[in-house]
């Protein structure tokens, strides 16, 4: 028997192909068609449903993006307001009131003009003691609106302003820078600083004896702090 199939078709095979009905079984083609039709329609419906689902998903996606954008757009001003309310010190309004008091005392022209640029608030009752430059209240509030990080600085200013109102004087004390004061005592004896840093071991005094009995002695000096040696003469002790 060869592997290749013979080309000549035997009679029995063509007979088998012509067979149209399986003997002994009843096949109802209408019922079978109904089943098939339902399956075909179901497939069409499922295709349609798939498109509906895709459309719904796209719609939902778009809606979510729109909502997110909306929240982003509306969220920032709301936050600003909250910050302003939280950190706005009440005392900030008082400088303007102070200015009003000054106005009442008929020093409007001076104060207002100076306030517009750099407000100079002066005392109302006494003569002018000091004048300080302060930032106008409006500017301060603007800063607060825009930047909440500046809160500690603003608070400082606000506190200082509070003091001004109590004493009815506008004194804003700028932070003083401590400078080292050097005292130069040109007259009299030199002052030897006995600072904590100078140790006793560093203090030296010495005497010089000459042949004629003259003694020269030094007062104790700190070797590190001073390079000046003052010699005193004593008469020879006989």
């Amino acid at each position, binding site marked *: 028997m060869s592997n290749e199939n013979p080309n000549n078709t035997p009679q029995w095979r063509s007979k088998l192909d012509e067979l149209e009905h399986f*003997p002994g079984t009843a096949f109802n083609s209408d019922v079978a068609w109904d089943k098939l039709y339902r399956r075909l329609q179901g497939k069409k419906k499922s295709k349609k449903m798939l498109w509906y689902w895709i459309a719904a998903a796209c719609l939902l996606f778009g809606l979510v993006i729109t909502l997110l954008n909306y929240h982003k757009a509306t969220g920032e001003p709301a936050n600003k307001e909250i910050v302003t309310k939280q950190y706005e010190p009440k005392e900030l309004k008082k400088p303007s009131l102070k200015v009003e008091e000054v106005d009442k005392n008929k020093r409007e022209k001076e104060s207002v003009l100076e306030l517009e640029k750099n407000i100079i608030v002066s005392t109302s009752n006494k003569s002018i003691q000091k004048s300080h430059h302060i930032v106008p209240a409006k500017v301060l509030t603007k800063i607060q609106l825009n930047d909440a990080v500046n809160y500690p600085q603003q608070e400082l200013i606000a506190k200082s302003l509070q003091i001004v109102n109590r004493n009815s004087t506008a004194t804003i004390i700028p932070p003083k820078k401590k400078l080292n004061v050097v005292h130069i005592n040109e007259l009299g004896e030199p002052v030897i600083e006995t600072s904590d840093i100078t140790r006793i071991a560093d203090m030296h005094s010495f005497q010089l004896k000459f042949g004629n009995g003259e003694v020269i002695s030094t007062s104790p000096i700190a070797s590190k702090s001073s390079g000046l040696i003052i010699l005193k003469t004593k008469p020879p002790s006989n």
Partner: protein
Amino acid sequence: MNTSELVKEAKQGSTAAQKCLFDQFADKMLVVCQRYVKNPEDAEELLLDGFYKFFTKIASFTYQGDAALYAWLKRIMINECLMFLRAKNVFTIVTEATAEEIPLQEEALDNLSAEEIFKLIVQLPVGYRTVFNLYAVEGMNHGEIAEMLNVSEGTSRSQFSKAKVLLQKLLLQNDIKYVKRKSK
């Protein structure tokens, strides 16, 4: 309406054309399915599966005559049947290296009617029947059959040989009956 027009309209999604094509080929295709799958319910289900695939893939089909359409449809049905049998794991056949060379008595088959041949084939066990159908009826070679059933070529040969032996036994029985019937 001829088959060409029916195919054209079925491609456009006409239900009426699809129904006409189904009515035209359903009986023949059911016979094909029942040659592979003995159970009538399974065969009918496979017929519907085959037509479903046919109508869903008809857009890719180019009509080149009724014979081509019949061959394509038949091929779809056979594939469906083989898939069904493969799913049932009926092709786990032990390979036999040496297959007996037994010539098929085709003359004896020629003397039988189509129905009698059909009944003989259906009586074969599923493995023999499948290989016999593919080789003797569909005209495939053992290489193709081995590839389709995912078995070795030797297995396909041995299955066909055994199918022939069994068929001859059945033919002898039928021949006796046929002789008896003739003598009466």
